[in-house]
Each structure stands twice: as C-alpha cells, then as structure tokens.
C-alpha cells in the first residue's frame, strides 16, 4: 500500500512545500474552521433546521444551496480547464492542469460537505436513490452523476500522478462529460420549475455551463497564484505563460457571461412578465441591487475583465487580484440566483390582502458557519495538497 501511494506522490523535479510556521498555522486555522462548520451542521441536524437556519416554508433553499452551487460550479469549471490540457492537448494548459484536477476533487467534496448539512436526512439518500430512483428528477441525475464524476476525477488524478497518460485521458474525458451532464442537470433543477418564473426556461443549464467555465478559469488563477505566494516559490516562465493563457481564456467567458447577463436583464424587464419582472427588479433596483451591481456585475464581470485586459501577459499580481474579485463576484451570482428565484410569492398578482409583496431570507449564523466550514475545508485541502503533492509539478 505504501509503495502504491509512493507511486503517485511526485518527488523528482518537484517543488518543496513551505514548512514555515505560518503555513502550518494557516492549515490549523482552516482545520479548526472546518470542524466549527461541521459542529454547526451536526447541531442543526440534531435540533432541527427550523430552529437554526434562516430558511422557511416560503424560501426553503438558503445560503447552503448557494454555496453548494458555488462549489460544484467551480469543480466543473476546474475539470473543464484541466481537460483543455490533459484531454484536448492544449499544451499551454498543462502546467495548471494537475492542480486543477486535484482542486476539482476538493471543491466537489466541499460542496458535498455543505449540502450534507442542508439536506435534512442525507442518510436516507443511498437507499432512496437506488430503490426510489426517479429518472424524471434532475436532482436525482445531478446527485448520481456528480457521485460518478467524483469517482472518475479521483481515478484520473491517480492515473495522472502515476504518469499513465492513456488512462488519464480516457478518465479525464469521461469525468468531463459526466461533469457537464451533472452540471447542466443542476441548472435544470432550477430551469425546469414551471412555477418559478425567474428560473424557468432553457437559460439555466446553458448559463451554468458557461459560468462553470469562467469559474474554473478564475479559480485556477486564484489557486495557482496563491500556491506560489504561500510557498514562496518562483513561477517558471512556462507556468507563468500558462496562467496568462488561462486569463485570456477567462476574457472569452467573461464577455460571454456579460452578454448572457445583459439579455437576462432585458428579457426580465421587457413586457413586465409576471414573476420574472418582480424578481428582476429586486436585482437591479431592489433589495439585491448592491449584490447585483456591486458583486455580480462589478466584481464578477467588469473589474476582472478590465484588469485582465490591461495586465494580461504583464502582471501576475494583477491577475491574482482579478481572480479574488472574480471569486467573490461569482459567489454573489450563485447566492442571488438561488435566493431571488424564490422571493416572488406564489400567489403574486392576485390582490391577496396581508400577503407579502416579496418573501425574505437572511442566512442564520449556523448556516454561515457551515459555509465558512466548507470554504475552510477547501482551503485546508488546498494547502495540504501543495505540501503533499509538491506543487503539483510532476508533468514531464
């Protein structure tokens, strides 16, 4: 067993991870925060979500669903970005690919960690998913396919580490196809709900895939820069070129998403379509306007676009900064998408008295701690990965 493990932990020509106290302290803090998140989740399961979460009958999905979506979007995106190098042979993407595969595994597990505490009885899933399989349910497909995706990504990672390129390509392609199928099904979880006008339609699955590609680019820029900064490594010209190439690719997806967003807004306002219109006005001029303009549009789209356009090929620090803004902006996109879609009351427009114009939701401290736990787990595994896999640098 130890020989087998040694087989996929690279040594030669790899980077030595930082042994500094600060690095270890960061890992310890992440580990503690992860445990705090898990404790909050277990406590909530024990006393009941109704007593600890901000969710309600009217708004049953809260920040945990948003965080789950954020993590799995990032995972799918990292898988897409890694496949450009490993599966489709774009050499520029090879230096970041291994880290991307590793992080796609870490982020999907972080997503599972968060949603495990959102689902009230996750222990009923293995039995129910098999015995009660509902092939018309997007949630069923999403869960099942993401389960398979995780297996394929882990196998791909092992094959990559062992230098078995033939199998890693097959597994990588399978993982990519399953990941995209799973991810578009996640979009369809929202998009196929006829009673939720803001989500309803083919936009969601399409949007999810494009925004995954963007998330993947932004995330790998962020984590690659972070790895080199945290460990005090100097980036080789090849890796540097790779990061700049990813940034240029991000430009493509940023512009596509801007185009998508512009038309989503126009379609949401034109004709004052009931339900859709109310949700869109919450975003552009209502309670969620700061999230939308500040988070989604400025931090998620425009600023990264402008910074990358100006500094691509020149400054890694600028790209790193753009990726931090992008990560926050993308998180806001997920949050708004999940929450605003539920805020239009079911019987809106029926002149019902003492009935809210808009439902409301605020994340509770317990929910927030679980999200922090998920992010911390992701951070912990990232730091651990850099140390154990020596900067993910065994590509020959």
């Amino acid at each position: 067993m130890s020989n087998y493990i040694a087989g996929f932990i690279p040594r030669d020509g790899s980077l030595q991870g930082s042994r500094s106290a600060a690095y270890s302290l960061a890992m310890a803090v992440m580990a503690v925060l992860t445990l705090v998140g898990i404790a909050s989740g277990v406590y909530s399961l024990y006393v009941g979500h109704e007593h600890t979460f901000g969710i309600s009958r009217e708004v049953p999905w809260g920040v945990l669903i948003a965080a789950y979506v954020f993590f799995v979007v990032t995972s799918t995106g990292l898988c897409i970005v890694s496949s450009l190098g490993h599966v489709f042979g774009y050499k520029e993407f090879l230096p970041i690919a291994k880290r991307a595969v590793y992080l796609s595994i870490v982020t999907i597990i972080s997503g599972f960690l968060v949603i495990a505490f959102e689902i009230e009885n996750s222990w009923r899933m293995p039995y129910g998913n098999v015995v009660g399989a509902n092939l018309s349910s997007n949630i069923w497909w999403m869960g099942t396919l993401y389960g398979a995706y995780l297996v394929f990504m882990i196998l791909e990672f092992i094959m990559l580490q062992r230098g078995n390129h033939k199998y890693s390509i097959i597994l990588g392609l399978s993982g990519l196809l399953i990941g995209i199928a799973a991810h578009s099904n996640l979009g369809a979880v929202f998009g196929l709900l006829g009673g939720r006008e803001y989500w309803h339609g083919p936009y969601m699955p399409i949007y999810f895939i494009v925004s995954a590609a963007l998330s993947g680019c932004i995330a790998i820029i962020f984590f690659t820069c972070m790895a080199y900064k945290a460990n005090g490594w100097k980036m080789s010209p090849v890796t540097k070129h790779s990061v700049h190439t990813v940034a240029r690719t991000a430009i493509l997806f940023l512009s596509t998403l801007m185009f998508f967003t512009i038309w989503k807004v126009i379609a949401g306002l034109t004709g004052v379509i009931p339900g859709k219109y109310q949700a869109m006005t919450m975003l552009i001029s209502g309670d969620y306007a700061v999230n939308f303009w500040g988070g989604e549009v400025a931090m998620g789209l425009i600023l990264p676009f402008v910074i990358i356009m100006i500094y691509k090929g020149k400054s890694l620090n600028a790209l790193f900064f753009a990726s931090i803004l992008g990560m926050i902006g993308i998180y806001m996109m997920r949050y708004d998408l999940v929450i605003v879609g539920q805020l239009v009351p079911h019987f809106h427009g029926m002149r019902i008295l003492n009935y809210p114009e808009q439902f409301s939701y605020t994340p509770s401290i317990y929910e927030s701690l679980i999200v922090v736990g998920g992010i911390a787990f992701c951070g912990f595994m990232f730091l651990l990965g850099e140390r154990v896999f020596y900067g993910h640098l065994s590509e020959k």
Partner: protein
Amino acid sequence: MKISDLEKLKSEGVEQLPSQERRNFLKLGFAVTGVYLGGTVLSLVSTFDADAAIRQGIPDGCEWPYSPHYTMVIRERRCIDCELCKVACVKTNNVPEYGYRTDILEIGAEAKHGLHDATFMPVLCNHCNRPPCVRVCPTTATWKDEVTGIVRMNPSRCIGCKTCMTACPYNARYFKEEIRAIDKCDFCWESRLSKGMKEPACVEACPAGVRMFGDLSDQKSEVFKLLHTQDAVVWVLRPETGATPNVYYTNI
C-alpha cells in the same frame, strides 16, 4: 347552522305582507324586466348562451384519468373565513402549530375608510395531474396515486432536500419536524378515505358548503355537476404552470 338546514325551515308565507310591500316588489320586477328587455332589444342579440360559461384550466373532452378522480370544487363566494376547515385538518392530521396543510387567503382591494370588499380563498394541495413536486423528487418519496390521483407522501423515503417545496406552485408543502419529512394534504387519504370515510375532514367541517369533494369521473357526482353548470365561472390557480390542478374554484 348549515345553509342546508335553513332550507328545511317552514316558509312564513306572503299572506301577512302589506300591500305597499307587494307594490314595491312588483315595481322592482318591472324595472328589472324593463332594463333587460331594453338591453336585449338594443343589442339585437341574445343575452343567453348555454356554452358561455367561462372555464379556465379544465381539460378538454372531460377526460379524467383516475377512477375515482378525486377533486375539490371550492365555491369561493360562500367562504366566510370561519377556519373550521383548518381546525378540522389540524386535528385530523396532527398538523403542528408551525405548519398547515390548508389555509385561507383573503382577496380584496383596499377601499376608503379602511373598508374593503373581501373574498376568501381556501388553498390546499391541488393534486395536480402533472405534479411538479412528484417530477422533481429524487427518491419517489412523493408520488401520484395510480388509482385515485391523490399526491401522496412516504415520509420514510424523504431525504428532506425540499425540492418539492420549491417546485410546488401553490406553497402546499412544509417540512414536518416530528417525522423529519415533508407533509402535505392528501385529501385525508391516510386519516379518513382509506378507512372508508367519504370525504376529507375540511369538507365535513365546512358549515357553508364551500368545499365540495367527489369523483370527477362520475358524471352524477356533485363536483362534476358543479363544474358543468350553465353560466358557471370555473377556474384553477396558476394555470400557466402547466400542472393541471384538481382543485377548482367557482362563482356559484
């Protein structure tokens, strides 16, 4: 006292009425007749059309896929918001304080002096023919009964993902802590119908005959007749979602 009981009371007759009252009544009759006659002559078309009843959301061709095809017809105008239906539901189905299987909403426009014209609208699970909640459930913990069409729940299969709550256009579902599963109206299948009783608790409790329950596939049933009454306006809630609900509302 129920309206049906009022109808059984003995008539006091018209013998004791003063003649002035009779004249007033006749005048009113003539006035009404005159207005209608005049209107008919002016419009030069018939005012009565047997097929003119407005029916929104009733499937064409009277095809009812279930037998018995359980349905509820709500005579909205009769509802006075006494909430006896809600009380009966809570008692019969052990509905906790924080939840509800059925509710009564108030429709109306605010008018001057704080007064408004109100109509009460009972809401419950619509037991849709194409239930969005059933489609989305990953573990078939909720399903459409093949015989009765009732949308039912198997609590022990429910993983609590709450997708059905998000999918339901009618806000008919809630998470019941006590059973760690989603709870919803099942037309009292578990508590009454499966034990041989003929109608849900809310229907039995309603003193004004608002909630009418029955088998739509039976043309002799009260609910079938109500939906096919001449001049009746019949509608369902949120028909645009395509869920084809089985709870109908009518103005008669």
